[in-house]
């Protein structure tokens, strides 16, 4: 056992007011509960987990199977309850673990439901399983006073800041493309259809507005962690953040994303911000506990923990970067697209028809994805090559189960990216039934079309004569 080796080690283990982290726990738990209740209230559990007859598994997670109704509804009830328990700080570790397991389970059921902010919830809930956020302002602390603390190590905040910062920075890097920065696409496509928006609507189909909003979004994502980290700019930065997410919520239906990010960004604030907010609201919160210097010993256990955290951070950086290992345009081939925080960076629509041949058939049969999928699944899979492959293999399995020994499945898959003329996404000559799913670069995905995206002009219709 040695004294702490580095000054940052001591700084990281210095204990600061737990109020901010407790507030984060409470708000995060409420968001999880709200998300689960939305799924139940809007009928999304039926739509996404009961109605489909085929589910797209994540690579390596084909063993995750959907619960039948009403058990799948029960899973969302459990998720809502675990979110509430998390907020209350009641059986905190169990609540965090349940949140992580159940949320991750429902996310793993079908790739077509993937959303970046759901992935963020999974990561944060996993982190919370190991972070001591239930020891302050919680029912656990009230039930077991020995657990109660008023301060928590600074590294806990640092870790959460890193996690949230990763989202923003990689979301910015995903926008560092010619389409986004030079051609203002797909921003122009989105804005041009929103000219009914109050006050600013008539301006939204202007190219210069699309450019301005595209660059603003890029610079915002790239720099907001910095402005939030600096005490002097933090209040203004958070104000901008609120405006940004309010604006995106008004313009685009992105569900819980703005709420999650405005909550997550609070981890950049000082440890005592809830007390200051309370005072500003005329309440009388207790005085903040004084910071305590770190006395963490450089034990083997702590060394292992530090290494695990470092590994976590490295993984969080490497996973989004893996997309670049594939070369080409990731927005087209989508290899490495998921878990890389490519938030709102493409407008892509596809058309898929499978061509199936089996022994004894006189000709190829054309099979639309909707024969096996819900409309939602068909729409999502039509632009994602690995999902097109997965359904091709499923179709082959179905035909083999019907007694056809030799089955070939090819596909006519077209897509339009950011308004470009449609182009083939998949090599139509490749028998996808013989292609094994893999993380390796896929030679059966055709290169992205050359040339710039569409440059829209204003919607106009001539007057009546």
């Amino acid at each position, binding site marked *: 056992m040695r004294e702490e080796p580095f000054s940052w080690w001591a700084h990281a283990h210095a204990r600061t007011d737990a109020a901010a982290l407790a507030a984060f726990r409470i708000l995060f738990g409420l968001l999880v509960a709200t998300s689960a209740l939305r799924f139940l209230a*809007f009928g999304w559990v*039926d*739509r*996404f987990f009961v109605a489909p007859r085929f589910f797209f598994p994540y690579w390596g997670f084909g063993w995750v199977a959907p619960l039948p109704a009403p058990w799948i509804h029960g899973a969302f009830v459990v998720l809502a309850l675990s979110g509430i328990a998390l907020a209350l700080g009641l059986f905190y570790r169990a609540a965090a673990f349940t949140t992580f397991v159940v949320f991750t389970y429902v996310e793993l059921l079908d790739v077509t439901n993937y*959303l*970046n902010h759901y992935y963020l919830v999974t990561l944060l809930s996993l982190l919370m399983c190991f972070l001591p956020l239930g020891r302050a302002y919680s029912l656990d602390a009230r039930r077991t006073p020995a657990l109660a603390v008023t301060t928590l190590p600074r590294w806990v905040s640092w870790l959460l800041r890193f996690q949230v910062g990763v989202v923003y920075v990689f979301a910015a890097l995903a926008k560092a493309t010619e389409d986004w920065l030079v051609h203002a696409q797909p921003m122009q*496509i989105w804005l*041009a*259809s*929103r*000219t*009914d928006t*109050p*006050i600013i*609507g*008539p*301006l939204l*189909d*202007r*190219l*210069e507005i699309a450019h301005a909003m595209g660059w603003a979004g890029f610079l915002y994502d790239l720099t907001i962690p910095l402005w939030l980290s600096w005490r002097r700019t933090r209040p203004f930065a958070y104000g901008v953040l609120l405006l940004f997410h309010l604006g995106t*919520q008004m*313009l*685009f*239906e*992105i*569900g*819980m*994303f703005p709420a999650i990010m405005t909550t997550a960004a609070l981890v950049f604030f000082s440890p005592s911000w809830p007390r200051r907010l309370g005072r500003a609201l005329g309440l009388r919160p207790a005085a903040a506990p004084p910071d305590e210097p770190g006395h963490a010993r450089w034990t083997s256990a702590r060394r292992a923990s530090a290494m695990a955290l470092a590994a976590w951070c490295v993984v969080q950086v490497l996973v989004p970067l893996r997309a670049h290992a594939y070369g080409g345009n990731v927005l087209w081939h989508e290899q490495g697209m998921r878990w890389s925080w490519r*938030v*709102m960076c493409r*407008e892509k*629509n*596809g*058309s898929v028809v499978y061509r*199936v041949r089996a022994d004894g058939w006189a000709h190829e049969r*054309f*099979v*639309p994805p*909707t*024969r096996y999928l819900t*409309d*939602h699944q068909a*729409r999502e899979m039509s632009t994602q090559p690995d999902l097109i492959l997965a359904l091709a293999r499923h179709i082959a399995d179905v035909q083999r189960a019907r007694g056809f020994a030799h089955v070939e499945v090819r596909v*006519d898959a*077209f897509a*339009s990216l*950011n*308004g470009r003329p*449609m182009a083939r996404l998949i090599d139509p000559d490749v028998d996808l039934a013989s292609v094994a799913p893999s993380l390796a670069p896929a030679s059966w995905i055709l290169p992205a079309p050359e040339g710039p995206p*569409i440059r829209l*002009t*204003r*919607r*106009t*219709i*001539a*007057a*009546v*004569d």
Partner: protein
Amino acid sequence: MKLRIIPAWRALVRRPVHSLVAPRWALAVVAGLSGASGGCVVVSTTRSAPPGSDVDAGAPLDAGGRAVGADATRRVLGALGSGVILPAVRDFDAAAAALTSAVEAHAASRSDADLRAAQDAWVVAMERWQGLEMMQIGPAAMAGTAAAPGAVGGRDLRDQIDAWPLVNRCRIDQETVSRDFEDEDAFAAETVNVRGLGAMEYLLFAPNASNGCGASAEINASGAWAALGEDGVRTQRARYALTLARLVQRSAVTLRTAWEPSGEDWAGQLARAGEGASAFSSAQEALNAVSDAMFYLDTEVKDMKVAGPAALGDACAASSCPDLLESRWAGRSREHIAANLVAFERLFLGDAPERDAPGFDDLLVSVGAPDTASRMAEAIAAARRAAEALPRIDGSSLETHLAAFAALYDLLRTVSELMKTEVVTVLDLDLPESAATDND
């Protein structure tokens, strides 16, 4: 990712508000400063709107007198509502009334002449309905379920009029025996697979007095069907058809009332989309409702009406499946497909090809995608011509015309591919049922 307009707060939008907040001179200043103004706008070729359209009233225009932005979309919607959909609804209502009269006469006399007249009236009504199949917007559209969100204003009227492919011959025969149809109001609550124009086709065109149930079915095992005798079967079918005609007419009246300016004015609601006095919270949402309806071409026409019976898909294991033809008894499958395509073309172009009216093509041209517009128009016209050139199809002749079906299928695929990729991307439309969830 797919993004969609938030509907709830949009009801607050009023055109005069943003006209005041962002007047034309302000837009001109912004445009002038940026150098990206109307100078690069591709002008729509459309010069006229249909009679009765009031979509220009109060709409801010650009220097060339053109409606811009959401108002341009509303102008297209207004033209489609009052120039395409409302006339089609009126025509169908008139045809449904004529059908009821003809079936009444047939039920009263059961003469061969009156049967032929009833059949002719059904042919007219069904062909007009086939146009409206492509226009399931508002009350004709799906009401929605827990697992599938409904359309704006959806009331399932479509299924009340024609629930194809949900037509169950054996169930219709069972109803023929039970005579439940004699209580017209109660029968309106029966399942849709024994009602509507599809069931009427069987009742009016079935060539003989056999039934579609197995020997173990109650109507055969008990001898109830046999007890009717051939004349009894024809009598009951005529009466049953009369009940169905009246129920279809009720729905036709409801549909027409919904679209008439003196009623719920759905045509006007399209024209005013996003302006408060409309069920649609934005012009884009209304445009999306029209686009959703047009996807009938992809799912029902391409995959079910064409690929299904011709064994081009995997729904039919044999070399052909006449049972999957839409019009098995009247032999009108070809005419129905052609009518579907004519309606699709009118929605896309704003009117018949020989006339000029605002449509999706004009929107595409105006935003800088004239190539997409022209390729779509050409592809639709080619598919329509191929459908019109199909030989008359019935169960016995299908096998000899599979090549023509395959050719039509290829043409429909081209339309579908363009619609699903370039059209929806450039106009930022959602594919059906893909909108009502979170995105990022």
